[in-house]
């Protein structure tokens, strides 16, 4: 029985359809292990609460940290949670698996699919439990705005999600590049470790990176590997609007996101060429 073969290059619709199916599959799978799911939600929340307690403690001793007062700092933290939550739900599961597949030489099946490999590898696994971080972040955002007495302008409300997504895009690029390099470098540090180090730096306001130790970090992580932009830029829009120099940084952030995405694509394609599947 002959079947018409769809030869057209897979378009956006097909990719979205695949993503939707993967989202569903991920949910089915997570619900199969409800106990685990619950535990992960609880532990995510516990970590967040502990972190908050730490900062509450610190704010007993000071009015602000590097110019960020208490509630703006909470907004900063909340932004970090939004970015992290999205990353760990939609991006990290796929990329961690990608790293393992490269290491074991099992990328074969993915390479044979008639759909963009980078897309498939990045998004086909979803960890819904990590959305807890995202929602707690939303809650903290609301709380920080309310207690701090901030009413964000419609402009800020519109632009904030865009920059949160830019932050996700930048971190995505960094992780994909890190995973891809394991093609050339034998086994890498577990990708989960790299993610940990990325979050260590990106979760503090730019302003603390001062002095002989901090300046090079600030410059390096703003212009070379711009992970510091991921959380800082959107957080500023929401917590400290009307700051001078902010627009320059914002425009730069958009540009940096674009450059990162293009560069990442280039590196990814190169890595695939270098990939060799495990011997039989």
């Amino acid at each position, binding site marked *: *029985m002959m*079947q*018409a*073969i*769809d*030869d057209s*290059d*897979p378009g956006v619709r*097909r990719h979205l*359809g*695949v993503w*939707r*199916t*993967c989202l*569903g*599959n991920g949910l*089915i*799978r997570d619900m*199969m*292990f409800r106990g685990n799911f619950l535990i992960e939600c609880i532990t995510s929340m516990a970590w967040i609460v502990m972190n908050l307690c730490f900062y509450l403690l610190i704010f007993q001793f000071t009015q602000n940290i590097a110019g960020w007062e208490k509630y703006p700092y909470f907004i900063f933290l909340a932004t970090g949670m939004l970015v992290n939550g999205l990353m760990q739900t939609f991006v990290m599961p796929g990329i961690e698996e990608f790293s393992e597949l490269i290491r074991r030489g*099992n*990328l*074969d*099946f993915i*390479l*044979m*699919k*008639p*759909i963009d490999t980078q897309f*498939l590898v990045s998004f086909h696994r979803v960890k819904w439990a990590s959305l807890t971080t995202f929602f707690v972040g939303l809650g903290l955002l609301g709380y920080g705005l309310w207690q701090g007495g901030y009413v964000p302008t419609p402009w800020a409300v519109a632009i904030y999600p865009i920059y949160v997504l830019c932050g996700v895009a930048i971190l995505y690029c960094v992780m994909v590049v890190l995973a891809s390099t394991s093609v*050339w470098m*034998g*086994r890498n540090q577990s990708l989960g470790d790299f993610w940990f180090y990325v979050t260590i730096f990106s979760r503090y306001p730019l302003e603390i990176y001062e002095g002989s130790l901090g300046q090079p970090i600030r410059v390096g992580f703003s212009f070379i590997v711009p992970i510091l932009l991921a959380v800082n830029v959107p957080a500023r829009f929401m917590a400290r609007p009307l700051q001078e120099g902010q627009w320059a940084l914002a425009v730069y952030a958009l540009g940096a996101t674009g450059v990162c995405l293009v560069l990442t694509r280039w590196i990814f394609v190169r890595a695939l*060429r*270098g*990939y*060799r*599947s495990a*011997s*039989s």
Partner: protein
Amino acid sequence: MAVIKIQDLAKTYRVYQKREGLAASVRGLFRRQHRMVEAVRGISLTVDEGQFVAFLGPNGAGKTTTLKMLSGVVNPTSGTAEVMGYVPWERQHAYRRRFALVMGQKNQLWWDLPAVESFRLHQQIYGIEPTAFARTQGELVELLDIGSLIHQPVRELSLGERMKMELVTALLHRPKVLFLDEPTIGLDVVAQHSIRAFLKDYQTKQRVTVLLTSHYMKDVLALCERVVVIAKGQIMYDGSLAGITGKFGGHKIVTFKFSDKAHADVASRGEVLSCEGPRLRLRIDRAAVTGVLGDVLAAYDVEDVSVEDPPLEEVIAEVFASAPNAGGPAESDPAPVEAVER
């Protein structure tokens, strides 16, 4: 019409050597030794549409590497190949849409989910039209008799059942070319049989071009007329199964049944395989058979005599063993620790 055209395909890997001992490992931090492994050394082959071809060879012969090159997963070091007019390692979407690869003991289905969810994902990825997809899925599931199992999580299935799911997944988009890498390995006899039966039936009806690798004789006997024997990265033989014995079988098995008892001097004419009472089985060089027969029949009273070909497995094992070594590593080298493409 030739569907698969391979010309002088070759693949060489660089493999890093790990040395023994702590001191050597520390040295390895700074400088690594490597050697080159020629997995495939110049293979040329043409396969027509609708043919079912088996690659037979021992482990490490290069069968899987060849299939991976044809699947576009591995880039060859040299040589060309064309499948349905496409160059596999360019990995064009149109090519990937038209072929499928199934690997024995390797699973592409989501482990925790029922197979039917993986099928649905497959449909999305390949852009298969829904009604056609439903029909194809229904047919395949019925042919393989797995209707009750597709709603169970894949990890709960037996090895044979998982293999059937893999086959269904591979065929859902109705590929014109099918690559099977050791599909029956590790399966019990019943599962092997039902999969072979299915493959034979499906291939005949759909006129799919199939390339199968195996080291099981039974796969080859059941499924195809054409066998390609590969050993140490080269093709040793390409033709019908029966022809192998003709070309390579250097011996014959001669069985004498004497009317009184087996005679010792007859036993010295060849290699004794068994000697029970009046029955004597010898392995004799093919060229010497007529001579021995003549002599023995003239000298002794023989009730019955039979001349047979040696078992196919033996012949093939001899073919494997006779493959020439590459200029590189010997058989006894340790297994590679990690390998990176050159």
